[in-house]
């Protein structure tokens, strides 16, 4: 593990000054009388190769932020740029295409399909890209090996432990080699030992080049990640990487 840390490729982020993700003056309001404003003028840049925690207590607006980053929800005002591409004017189908291609999701409840094997579950991550089944299976096995589940490819979710299920979900998010992975409370349903393992896995995946955003209410977890963005009452309260984002550097090891 430690050797992996030492070989972290700093150069990758430095070569990519363009943000993978950019939130540009995001405002989100839910209809009501009076309307509920959940996010006020949020600006955020995340560069390729970063591992970022978005942390905040429940009700802070972090879940809404995650949905907006993942294009599952649209902001009331402002724009989300994925790899520099504006999403404000994209149709629902185009957004789906963008998600299929560039965004991976990991959920707190894993959200695996119970009736099918780990490989088939991972393979749904490529289903909406029009890739052949055999190719999907091949890449899914590789992704499972990558998260340390090479020995569980034919197991069904019911036959796996919680940690293993979350690894399957992570493999599903990664199998399409997305620009950015969004993990919503990925350790929320796991015991502390398993949580540690999942955090370690995310650090390793980040070492290997994946850009990961973890949404969590857990400060301790956030502190272990290279950069943490604290959200409070609908705005960004602090950002440990704020002064570094303009150079786009990934400086997790310097923390």
């Amino acid at each position, binding site marked *: *593990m430690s*050797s*992996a840390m030492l*070989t972290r490729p700093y150069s*990758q982020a430095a070569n990519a000054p363009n943000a993978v993700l950019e939130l540009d003056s995001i405002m989100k309001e839910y209809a009501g009388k009076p309307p509920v404003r959940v996010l006020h003028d949020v600006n955020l840049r995340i560069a*390729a190769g970063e591992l970022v925690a978005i942390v905040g207590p429940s009700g802070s607006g972090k879940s809404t932020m995650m*949905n907006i980053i*993942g294009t*599952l*929800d649209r902001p009331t005002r402002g724009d989300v740029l994925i*790899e520099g591409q504006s999403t404000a004017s994209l149709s*629902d*189908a*185009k957004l*789906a*295409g*963008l*998600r*299929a*291609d*560039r*965004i991976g*999701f990991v*959920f*707190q*409840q894993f*959200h695996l*399909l*119970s*009736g*099918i094997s780990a490989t088939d579950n991972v393979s*749904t*991550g490529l*289903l*909406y*890209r*029009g890739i*052949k*089944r055999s190719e999907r299976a091949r890449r899914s096995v*590789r992704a499972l*090996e*990558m998260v*340390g589940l*090479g020995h569980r490819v034919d197991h069904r979710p019911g036959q796996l432990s919680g940690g293993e299920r979350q690894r399957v979900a992570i493999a*599903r998010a990664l199998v399409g*080699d997305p620009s950015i992975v969004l993990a919503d409370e990925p350790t929320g349903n796991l015991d502390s030992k398993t949580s540690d393992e999942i955090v*370690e896995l995310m650090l*390793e*995946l980040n*070492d*290997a*080049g*994946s850009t990961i955003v973890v949404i969590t209410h857990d400060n301790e977890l956030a502190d272990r990640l290279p950069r943490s963005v604290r959200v409070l009452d609908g705005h960004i309260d602090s950002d440990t990487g704020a002064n570094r984002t303009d150079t786009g550097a990934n400086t997790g090891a310097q923390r």
Partner: protein
Amino acid sequence: MTTVTGYDHPKATRRSKRSSSRSRLRFIDLIATGLLGLTTRVGRTVLTAGGIAIGIASMVSVMGISSSSRADVLAELDRLGTNLLAVQPGNSLFGDEVTLPDNASARIRRIPATQNAASLTAVQADIVRSDVMPPGRNGGMQVSATEPQLLDTLAGTMTSGRFLTDLDRELPTVVLGSDAADFFGIRSVENRPTILIGEERFAVVGVMDSLVLYPDVDRMALIGYGVAEKLFDTKPAPSTVYLRADPEFVEPVREILGRTVDPESPNSVNITRPSESLSAKAEVNKNLTNMLLGLGAVALVVGGVGIANVMVISVLERRNEIGVRRALGATRRHIAAQFVVESATLATIGGAVGVGLGAAVTVFYAKSQEWTIDVPIESLGLGIAAALIIGALAGLYPAIRAARLDPAEAVRPA
């Protein structure tokens, strides 16, 4: 864990390829995804498909049973032909009963489009098996005088022996209809049976097969005109003349029959077409069939509503699955298509089972009724097609509901 760093991460090459992201779902994957919902919920699939199966089975069996029941009637009709006409004396303008001219059948035979004709005349004579039987034990069997042409005209066949010939005209010989033969216990002429008509012993020279269209003839003992007149004072005026017309000229023949038989009062001649009653029978059968088909259709619609119900519930239960699929890049269309495929497949499974069941019921019932088995092939194809369409329609509303789910809402834990 070292595998992580070994993972091929082609980020640099990827950029250029991703200029436009489009969500795509291959057709075969769409079908597989639709089937997944069924194979992971087998119990529900069986119960839901059962409704459709019952509807389709009832429709297929109604069609099969009715067409099997009609097959025999229609085959009989085909064999006997629809070109037979019966001429009988009617009433004159003043309500008096008229008689047909003695030579009516000969006149009819002169019409060019007539293939054959023969007259029948009731004979006032009692018939019994032998002189040890008390008079009157005739079981309603009727003695009639007729001409040798009758057999061909009615397209009749012999169970045993031969029909009357010109030589039998004056002789005490008799041919029995099938009911009459059964009643008197004479099924064969091998032992030279005789029968008592009036005071005279007649030799039974032939026994006829049953004539479905002319049950009257089945109950007759047929003798020649000469012997009938001599022994029983029978007037030669026919009570019925049967004629077989050229199939293409049945109606024209029918129109000139009255004038031909009785030029003085053509309207007092009754003309009927016995095959019409059989056609009517087949027709009545058809109406009943349509009614039963309607009931089957109702069952099918109920089955469809059942599917729609289950699919709506399924959409509610699978909110998270829908949300995840949306997050993984499924468009609204993909979600809707998945549920329509699932519902259509569900119904088609039911339809296939129903078609099999319906065919089995038809075969079983037709066998028990000793009918010719006739399962209409088109009803099988139609059954499956109907199920598929019903299923797709039933899935439409739930599919639209599924597609309209807000993805951010749907991924949230239930």
